[in-house]
């Protein structure tokens, strides 16, 4: 007799659910398979880090999208516009603080980078609130209209971005301290990729904590599983959804800053170009699952970097191939949520 059984006999009566850890194995297996193919260990380290960095950035962007879908069955085709907005805001902030970003000290660079991220998140969050109110609110439960209206929202959003920042591409140079690479033995790892991995892990940890340790997170997870049940227990899922939408938009803005710095150039079309990739990631992960989205994003990042090195022609289609393979194994994505 242990203590938990004595305090909660109800919980004891429930059969224990075995956590599904099989998809977690995919990442190390993939990395190990790629190791002999790439030839040298140092190249492999470089590629793996590049893949992880790319995957982390994609995860930051896609996590909001998958939660919004899971909670309300709303698939936002205009999610890309928040990425673009975030990246353009970063160019403006960096432009104001160019002295700090160009400076040699790491501390000053960080001071330039943090406000860029915070401003991007704050503004995209507010815009996300307006987007939800104006664009998505009137068409709940009408998938056809939702697809069209969010698409329309993206067109208008991208055009408005062009009004403020112009239609041409704007360079977004990395702060000085993050340029160049670190050498681990013979393997060169770009400093910025380490930063991206760190930021990605932080976001994932924070999200995991909120979802599994707080009441709001509990409600969100319950809402994703069964919206009506949560509503009938007296919680306003509409408000919860607005909150999740704002958070998702803010994360997309943060991801936009990271993505813009990763490519070091910002264009008004960058958001819509990433859109397809995002859909692939959330389909692979299982629509609505944050954990699946995390694994899916890392898989996509790793596969596209490995194939980009091994077979550049194949790399252009690697994401779709990956999606097909995963769906053949698990037709609803790695972790299927609720009855989707």
């Amino acid at each position, binding site marked *: 007799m242990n203590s938990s059984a004595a305090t909660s006999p109800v919980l004891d009566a429930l059969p224990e659910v075995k956590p599904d850890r099989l998809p977690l194995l995919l990442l190390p297996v993939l990395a190990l398979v790629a190791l002999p193919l790439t030839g040298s260990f140092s190249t492999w380290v470089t590629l793996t880090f590049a893949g992880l960095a790319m995957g982390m950035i994609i995860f930051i962007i896609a996590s909001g999208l998958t939660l919004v879908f899971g909670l309300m069955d709303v698939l936002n*085709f205009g999610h890309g516009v928040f990425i673009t907005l975030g990246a353009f805001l970063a160019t403006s902030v960096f432009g104001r603080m160019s002295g700090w970003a160009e400076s040699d000290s790491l501390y000053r660079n960080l001071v330039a980078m943090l406000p860029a991220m915070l401003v991007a998140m704050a503004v995209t969050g507010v815009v996300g609130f307006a987007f939800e109110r104006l664009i998505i609110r009137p*068409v709940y439960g009408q998938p056809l209209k939702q697809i*069209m209206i969010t698409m329309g929202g993206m*067109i208008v959003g991208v055009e408005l971005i062009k009004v403020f920042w112009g239609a041409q591409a704007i360079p977004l140079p990395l702060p000085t301290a993050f340029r160049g690479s670190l050498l681990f033995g013979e393997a060169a790892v770009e400093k910025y990729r380490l930063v991206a991995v760190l930021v990605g892990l932080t976001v994932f940890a924070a999200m995991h904590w909120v979802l599994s340790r707080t009441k709001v997170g509990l409600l969100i997870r319950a809402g994703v599983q069964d919206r009506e049940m949560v509503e009938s227990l007296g919680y306003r899922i509409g408000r919860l959804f607005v909150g999740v939408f704002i958070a998702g938009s803010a994360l997309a803005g943060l991801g936009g800053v990271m993505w813009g710095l990763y490519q070091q150039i910002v264009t008004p079309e960058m958001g819509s170009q990433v859109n397809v990739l995002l859909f692939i990631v959330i389909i692979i992960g299982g629509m609505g699952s944050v954990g699946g989205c995390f694994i899916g994003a890392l898989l996509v990042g790793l596969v596209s970097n490995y194939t980009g090195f091994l077979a550049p*022609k194949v790399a252009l289609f690697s994401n779709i191939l990956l999606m097909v393979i995963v769906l053949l194994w698990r037709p609803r994505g790695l972790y299927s949520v609720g009855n989707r």
Partner: protein
Amino acid sequence: MVHHLFSGDFPRSRVLLVVLLAIVLGLVLTPFAFPGAKALNVAAKICIFIVLVSSFDLLLGYTGIVSFAHTMFFGIGAYGVAIALTHMGPTWSAVAAGIGAALVLSLALSLVIGLFSLRVKALFYAMITLAVAAAFQTLASQLSDLTGGEDGLTFRVPEMLSPGFMLSQHPFLGVSLDGRLISFYLLVTVTMVLFLIMLRIVNSPFGRVLQAIRENEFRAEALGYRTVIYRTWSNMLSAVFATLAGALLALWLRYNGPDTSLSFEIMIDILLMVVIGGMGTLYGSVVGATLFIITQNYLQDLMKVASNAANGIPLLRDLVSPDRWLLWLGILFVLSVYRFPAGIVGKLRAKALRPS
């Protein structure tokens, strides 16, 4: 006779009738009424997009399927003609072979996509087609031996359609009777025929079933219609017409590349045209395509004037700058989806029904 020609589906609104007559007359008389290469090109583009948008309406407006792979079929048609004419020389048999091969490929692809993915929900279908279309565009720009890659293909069309060909040395009503004029009238004729065929399809019993599926799929299934089969048919038919529209585009431009027929921007344009004109009625496609393309080509001139007038006011100047024409059409699109989902044509018809 007229009843048969229009399959009993008349405009049903006096204003709409006038608008449609004006569009048809305007298109037919373009070479005589509006001289210049630009006007002719705009009119030709309107014709091509009437076919393309109507075929998309078959899918979106009549069956209620959102597909983002429509430009893929448009591109297949255009590439079919372009590749055949490049490799087989400028003959009519090459045109026929190109269109034939393109149709076979389109049918096969639309069948596969339809059977595999029309069973899933609308959202998934939209996402899957988005991914497939992106992959196809990448494929087309990668197979540069066949498709000319990013540069595309420039080719010669059959003698009769090329600008050098002269039907008569004497100009007729001030317009020289060259190959360009022949291509234009060929285009107009084919457009009208294809449009009337589509009108026939949507007003047939088959078309009624499609509309029933759009309204309530579950009920249609319960009435004994195999909805997956009907949806796949609708997918294939719309692919066929999109392919033909692509072939017309290639014949008119004498060029084809990824940006002219496959790009996602065109997909967005088609979506805007269908919704603004009116979903679920083919006349809406005509109105939408005409309005959109005229706006695309001439609104910029108007906005230039407005932009000059608002020169002193910083933000307003940028908002009405000629490059931002899509912004205003985008806003119109969003408003149409909310306020009048049946589009311009639906609005006009509703007005005609109301006793005044």
